[in-house]
């Protein structure tokens, strides 16, 4: 493997996505480096979720090339794709927990599918994962409809982490959480990234998350990446949307 390949865990080159006649993404390039937490921001409706869904293969693209773990997803056969899918975890915006399964079954589901391990180990890993996302083992036998919004996000994260992925996609992980809960969640993502050596691709609107959790920020606008870099780069940028975003009233409040 070439060193640059090793460095970029996701390489997106020149992808375009179109719904009907509306171009949502237009020749977009993006690299996500191994081991970093990339915060992905942009105005509502700019196509942040579309890009995430395109990378994970839920939205078809018109043109371009996507490599994850150095594997071209278009060229990969079904087995290679499954291999890639095993190595990433996805936290959907609404959690997307299976409503007819308990928390325990939700977390065990991917493990059971991919690994042939004993029920005892499954149960132990479930408790370990729940502990990692800050939940007590007692919630394991509840159904998703019996959980609060924050708990759903945490369980969904535990499920995304069930197979110890190298890469996780988080789609607005802190939306709908109270500031303390959101702060905890950012902390949690940081801790997990340190302990498990994760790479995190996080779509967010939460300025706090960007400040506390993210190593690098990429900004989407007009179907392209307007800017990518550290928080200081973002604040120094002269782009009008970036100025409004990072120097607005809310941003000033966060920065103190």
């Amino acid at each position, binding site marked *: 493997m070439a060193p640059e390949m090793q460095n970029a865990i996701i390489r997106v080159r020149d992808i375009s996505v179109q719904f009907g006649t509306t171009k949502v993404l237009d020749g977009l390039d993006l690299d996500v480096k191994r081991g970093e937490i990339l915060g992905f921001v942009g105005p509502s409706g700019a196509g942040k979720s579309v890009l995430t869904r395109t990378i994970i293969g839920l939205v078809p693209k018109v043109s371009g090339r996507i490599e994850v773990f150095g594997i071209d997803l278009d060229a990969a056969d079904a087995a290679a794709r499954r291999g890639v899918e095993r190595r990433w975890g996805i936290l959907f915006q609404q959690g997307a927990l299976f409503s007819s399964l308990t928390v325990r079954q939700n977390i065990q589901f991917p493990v059971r599918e*991919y*690994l042939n391990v004993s029920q005892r*180990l499954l149960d132990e890993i479930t408790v*370990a994962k729940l502990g990692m996302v800050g939940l007590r083992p007692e919630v394991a036998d509840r159904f998703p409809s019996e959980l609060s919004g924050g708990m759903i996000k945490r369980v969904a994260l535990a499920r995304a982490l069930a*197979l*110890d992925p190298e890469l996780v996609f988080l789609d607005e992980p802190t939306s709908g959480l109270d500031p303390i809960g959101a702060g905890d969640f950012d902390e949690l993502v940081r801790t997990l990234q340190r*302990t498990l050596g994760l790479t995190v691709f996080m779509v967010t609107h939460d300025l706090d998350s960007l400040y506390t959790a993210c190593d690098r920020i990429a900004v989407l606008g007009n179907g392209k990446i307007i800017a990518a870099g550290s928080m200081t780069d973002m604040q120094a940028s002269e782009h009008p949307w970036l100025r409004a975003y990072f120097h607005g009233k809310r941003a000033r409040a966060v920065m103190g």
Partner: protein
Amino acid sequence: MRGDPTLERMVQGNGLALCAAGPWTARFAPLLEQIVADAEKLTGSRPNIFIDVSQVSKLDTFGAWLIERLRRSLTQGGIEAKIAGLSANYSSLVDEVRRVKAAPASDTQSVTITGMLDQVGRSMVGISATIVGLIDMLGAVLAASGRVMIHPRGFRLTSTVHHLEQVCWRAVPIVVLITFLIGCIISQQGIFHFRKFGADIFVVDMLGVLVLREIGVLLVAIMVAGRSGSAYTAELGSMKMREEIDALRTMGFDPIEVLILPRMLALIIALPILAFLGAMAALYGGGLVAWLYGGVDPEAFLLRLRDAISIDHFTVGIIKAPVMAAVIGIVACVEGLAVQGSAESLGQHTTSSVVKGIFFVIVMDGVFAIFFASIGM
């Protein structure tokens, strides 16, 4: 095999070192579990054991947990067990795993005779709850329609027309097709068997009475229960799941008035129309087969039909239609509102909406048969 994780034993003085090496990751979890289970048997052999993990090339939660499990079971066996050689990268992961308390085992439900009897008992009690639920909904719908009659502005005409299109207009092709085919089949079977007695022409009597009194409305009601009853349950159920019904209530709307009344009304208007169209299609199909297969020409068929049936037969059939529609609608709405938060629950209630809807339609038909027989219609 190279590349697999291992756990080598090495004697060190009066202690023992277990050297873990290779990738201790989820991929190798089954193998690792076996290795750890073997190592756990060392309990009691030595007073202290080192678990050396410096040679581990890759560690994730599965591997870290299995090492932790080994340490715990050795400690429990009275051995002083220590983990050594932990790199800085992995120490936080092992610390994280160390905080895990013993896992509560998943409760498995075994099938027992008492459990089955328990189920039977509960479902018997459930029947009375179902009936109470239906009566409750009937009352709520009547109360809501009373309110709408007093304040006609509360009536949702647009919604009613929309549902009328869904359950009536869009149902016409399938209802007409199926009843037409049933008419054909009845006629063909009748002719085939009556011919043995030279009584071909009586097929018209049978077809007329059967279609107008029973088959027409019953068949259409069953089709509507399957087609529209299930749709109502699924619509209301998913609205319930997404808290849309709660949202309506908090805005000061009565869900019965806004959601259920228009649906009920549409169904009550639709079913007699569909039953009528269905009966006509069945008679047409029967007449066609009688002509082509039985040699009864259309004029003879119509003449015989006029003699065989009276307006009573038609009235008996069509009177049942709105009542059956109300039963289907109420069952569908009760089931829809009973949906809980899961996709499975939505499926169960939609199934039970159709099953109960068809059951009650047939029960109603029986009740009507007794009633009409005793008043001599």
